């Protein structure tokens, strides 16, 4: 595609009408809970945009994030994003290898100086000079610094890139750190999840393209459109939680009746993600719907929270004074109640003492 060509011209050359943009932005507005009236104006902007150069760096990761974003095989609404971006470098997906692959990265950086977006999956090991993960003879740390220097923005996809994730789990032998700890002076958007929901990744990129700015982010750098509510907030088992009806085991009467999974370790109350609404595999289901508690994979240190099957815990000391202080700070800083709730529970999780639902209720 010629560099000056707009996305509208590009699709027109392939015989696809402007309706495709309106359909895409109607979907995006739904996904991101934008006012539905914005879809036509967004469609116009997107059609005028140029194809976005994307350099995708994979560091300490398992390729699950790439699997998630490329889940769909037939050309559909969800895949349209791959026409809107030019994936100029991606170890796993590109045909080139070795020096040719590295040249592709350097060429994209030179051609799109200051305009390309860097997507990173995986954490970066910094211990012992970063020798634990190298690509093309340079450490991940060097590659990140070099690539990010002239970028427009950085998107850290997956929990490893967003917070260090599994390589960062105790005892973190390679000194793995989050991308946001290493990138300074460039905006970093975190799209955590193990893997992240594909729509959260593609929707964020499409938002950047349509509006030319970052979406609203929470305190952990996550787009509020996808991470603004907890799993618990939107869980269809919530009525059972409210009524105190809990499965105590995976094959008991409560589990068979579809009751709340809190007591078998569900981390839904402290996990912010869109699984309960967007669901997985094209909207088929999500873990809780399949009978398993939420693992909390889009939160920092989910691997080190004392066990997936241990109920959420709280400190043995009375949590009320903490809550009162936090409430004061929260009110002063204009913090949402959800953030306060989260802070209390994060603190609680560290102590790993099992608590009752009553305790949790007190903090909300």
């Amino acid at each position, binding site marked *: 595609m010629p560099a000056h060509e707009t996305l509208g011209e590009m699709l027109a050359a392939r015989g696809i009408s*402007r309706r495709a943009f309106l*359909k895409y932005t109607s979907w995006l507005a739904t996904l991101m809970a934008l006012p539905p009236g914005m879809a036509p104006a967004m469609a116009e902007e997107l059609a005028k945009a140029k194809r976005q150069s994307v350099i995708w760096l994979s560091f300490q990761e398992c390729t699950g994030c790439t699997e998630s974003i490329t889940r769909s095989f037939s050309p559909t609404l969800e895949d349209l994003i791959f026409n809107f971006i030019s994936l100029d470098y991606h170890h796993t997906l590109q045909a080139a290898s070795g020096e040719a692959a590295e040249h592709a990265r350097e060429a994209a950086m030179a051609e799109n100086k200051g305009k390309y977006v860097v997507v990173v999956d995986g954490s970066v090991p910094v211990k012992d000079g970063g020798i634990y993960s190298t690509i093309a003879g340079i450490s991940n740390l060097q590659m990140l610094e070099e690539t990010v220097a002239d970028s427009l923005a950085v998107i850290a996809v997956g929990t490893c890139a967003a917070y260090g994730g599994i390589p960062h789990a105790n005892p973190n032998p390679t000194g793995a750190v989050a991308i946001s700890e290493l990138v300074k002076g460039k905006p970093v958007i975190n799209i955590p999840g193990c893997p992240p929901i594909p729509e959260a990744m593609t929707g964020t990129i499409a938002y950047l393209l349509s509006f030319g700015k970052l979406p609203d982010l929470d305190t952990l750098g996550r787009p509020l459109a996808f991470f603004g509510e907890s799993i618990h907030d939107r869980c269809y088992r919530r009525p059972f939680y409210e009524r105190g009806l809990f499965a105590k085991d995976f094959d008991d009467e409560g589990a068979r009746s579809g009751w709340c999974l809190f007591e078998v370790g569900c981390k839904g109350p402290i996990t912010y993600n869109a699984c309960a609404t967007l669901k997985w595999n094209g909207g088929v289901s999500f873990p809780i719907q399949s009978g398993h508690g939420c693992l909390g994979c889009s939160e920092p240190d989910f691997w080190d929270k004392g066990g997936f099957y241990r109920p959420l815990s709280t400190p043995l000391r009375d949590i009320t004074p903490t809550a009162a202080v936090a409430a004061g700070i929260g009110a002063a800083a204009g913090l949402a109640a959800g953030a306060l709730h989260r802070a209390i529970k994060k603190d609680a999780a560290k102590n790993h003492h099992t608590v009752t639902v009553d305790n949790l209720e007190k903090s909300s």
Partner: protein
Amino acid sequence: MNESLPITCAGETTGSGSLVRAIVAEAAALLAGLAETGETGRIDLAGLPLTEADKAALEELLGAGEVVAEIAVVGRSTVAETGHAGVWWVRHYGSDDRIAAEVLEITRIPEILLSHPADIAAAARRLGDTLGTASAGATDAIKEDRPDAGP
């Protein structure tokens, strides 16, 4: 605590009538606005926690109108006027023919049915080119008939 409820894990099947009534009330207000000022409106149904039963109830309340259109662009979309003129039900399908976006549009005609000016301009050029090619083809045919004829 031991009471076992007849529910299925795959989501609720019974609807809540209040949400449906709220949607209809919003549609009614927007429709009155359209009638008076011409201002259009949209209600995003996918963003609401509607069950299948809710949707069926909403469809029944709004009824079926005279127009049903199908659009084939990056998958399928359907546009149907409900039994209330000016209230359109627009569904966009994604992969696996799953509903990706569903909107009630309060308008004279949903924008996605209109041909976009950029597409019209491109089509005009293309049709012109086709005409040019067709007339060039005709000239070639004449030349073949009369090989001695000049250009």
